[in-house]
């Protein structure tokens, strides 16, 4: 997938409101290989945008297209394939499984894609400073630690676009930098586009373009 386009897109809940946005009701194209920042205030539909693009919700007007193809027409199998091979999303609410260990949370995804070796995953755990937590249940970890686990899980798949929804909200600057570095390395290696959303604190990256949502 080379581009994501939004044509006149607007969440149903915003209809009838005076929307001032560089995304909603605009024609926006996101290119593979570029890095974008979507800056938002609370309640401007940031998580909605992520949900639309990952195919989780459809409560919007206008169109969203992947490579010119309207995603409303995507079948179940299309979405499964997109989520496995084309588009990776780090959810703001993380969507980890608290009953599983940190390692198992990553493995449950890597087992599906078979994309990364155990060694690479371990090295990420180490760089992010949570190697000692690999076998701890995620439910017992802090949100900041969980964010790092979720990031690793987001990286163990092939993707053309990586979308990260407030990835460093609970991280200190140092860990935020490490996470940004790992993310950028992997995105560059795959030649992928990166879309970062942020309410306040955002990753320090060479953004191609910044949108105000």
């Amino acid at each position, binding site marked *: 997938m080379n581009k994501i386009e939004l044509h006149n897109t607007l969440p149903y809940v915003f209809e009838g409101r005076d929307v001032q946005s560089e995304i909603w009701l605009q024609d926006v194209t996101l290119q593979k290989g570029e890095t974008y920042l979507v800056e938002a205030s609370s309640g401007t539909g940031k998580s909605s945008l992520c949900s639309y693009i*990952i195919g989780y919700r459809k409560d919007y007007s206008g169109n969203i297209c992947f490579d010119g193809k309207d995603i409303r027409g995507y079948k179940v199998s299309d979405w499964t394939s997109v*989520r496995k091979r084309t588009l990776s999303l780090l959810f703001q609410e993380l*969507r980890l499984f608290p*009953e*599983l260990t940190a390692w198992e949370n990553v493995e*449950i995804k890597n087992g*599906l894609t078979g994309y990364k070796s155990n060694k690479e995953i371990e090295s990420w755990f180490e760089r992010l400073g949570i190697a000692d937590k690999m076998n701890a249940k995620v439910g017992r970890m802090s949100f900041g630690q969980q964010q790092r686990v979720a990031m690793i899980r987001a990286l163990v798949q092939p993707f053309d676009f990586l979308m990260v929804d407030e990835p460093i909200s609970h991280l200190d600057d140092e860990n935020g930098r490490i996470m940004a570095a790992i993310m950028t390395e992997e995105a560059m290696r795959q030649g992928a586009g990166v879309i970062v959303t942020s309410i306040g604190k955002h990753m320090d990256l060479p953004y191609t373009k910044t949108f105000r949502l």
Partner: protein
Amino acid sequence: MMSLVWKLLRQHISIAQLAGFFFANLFGMFIVLLGLQFYTDVKPLFGQEDGFLKPEYLIVSKRISGMSVLGSEESFGFTGKEVTDITSQPFCKSVGAFTASQYRVVCSMGVNGVAQFGTDMFFESVPDKFVDTNLSNWTFSPEEGVIPIILPRTYLAIYNFGFAQSQSLPKISEGVVGMIDMLVVLRGNGQEQRLKGKVIGFSTRLNTILVPESFIQWSNAKFAPEADLTPNRLIVEVKNPTDDAIVKYINDHNLELEDDKLDAGKATYFLKLVTILVMCIGMLISILSFYILMLSIYLLVQKNTEKLRNLLLIGYSPVRVSLPYQLLTVGMNALVLVLSLTILYVVRSYYMNMLWAMFPQMQDGSMWPSLCLGIGLFIVVSLINIVVVRNRVMKIWNRKE
């Protein structure tokens, strides 16, 4: 990796609910299968098809009343005029006469070469076309000296219960009639001849000792050349055995039908009724247990909705996410099937032994009908389970949960 998914999705599985389903379903399934199996096993005892006499053949004799015993003797026999009259009736296809042996017959019977008992006897024959058996078995030639014989089935019961039991002799089932040795001594007209008898089968509907017509003709000519051959009984082939005209004719002419089919019919009817009742109860239990399972699965999916949704969002397909629950239900159904069939097998061998003791002629039926029914139920229930689980997961996919 599948085990990780299972590790996640087995959360909230209620062992108590599943055990409840399991035992209820096992019980229900077993009752359903037992009902059918018992029915198939016992049914032949009631509705035994008579291998030697088609249902369209009726046996007609004159009604014996006090008056006729005191009256003239010839009233037992059918005159030529009476036979012609029956033949001319519209319900009648053809008529054959029973011809009885007119000389003395002494017969001793034994099993496996050991003589057991002897008795005076008689033989009767009907025209060969009325006997439904392989005709090559149903011939007699004086040179070979072997008489094929069809006995009433009641004789077998008399032997097995009255005789074999008290003398601790082996019981005989229909399958091994060849074991019966018969030595027949014919006397009459100043002659005596020993012949061998060979029992080729048993008939429920014939109350006589039936031999081939050729034998009766030969032996009557030899041992009782002057005897009167007025038939006492007739065998009538009718177009439709349920025709009312037959009953009317029989009553009008003071005749009697030899038939036990009606009683067997009633018994079969009640057997069917009871079987259906039992199977319905079993079905009800099964359906209720199935309901428990469905509720349990609904609850399980409900409690694990968030996990299922997250799995779907990180790229798992609905098929893959449904699989553990589908395997769980199908696996339990399969276990129920196997167990209920096993219990059925054990219970069946137990009651079959009792039945064999009572009815040695009973043939060993098969378990195929219950096996097929069990597998059929398994497939239907499993398919419903698979579809229901899949639908629940699709509801999560479509965010209708």
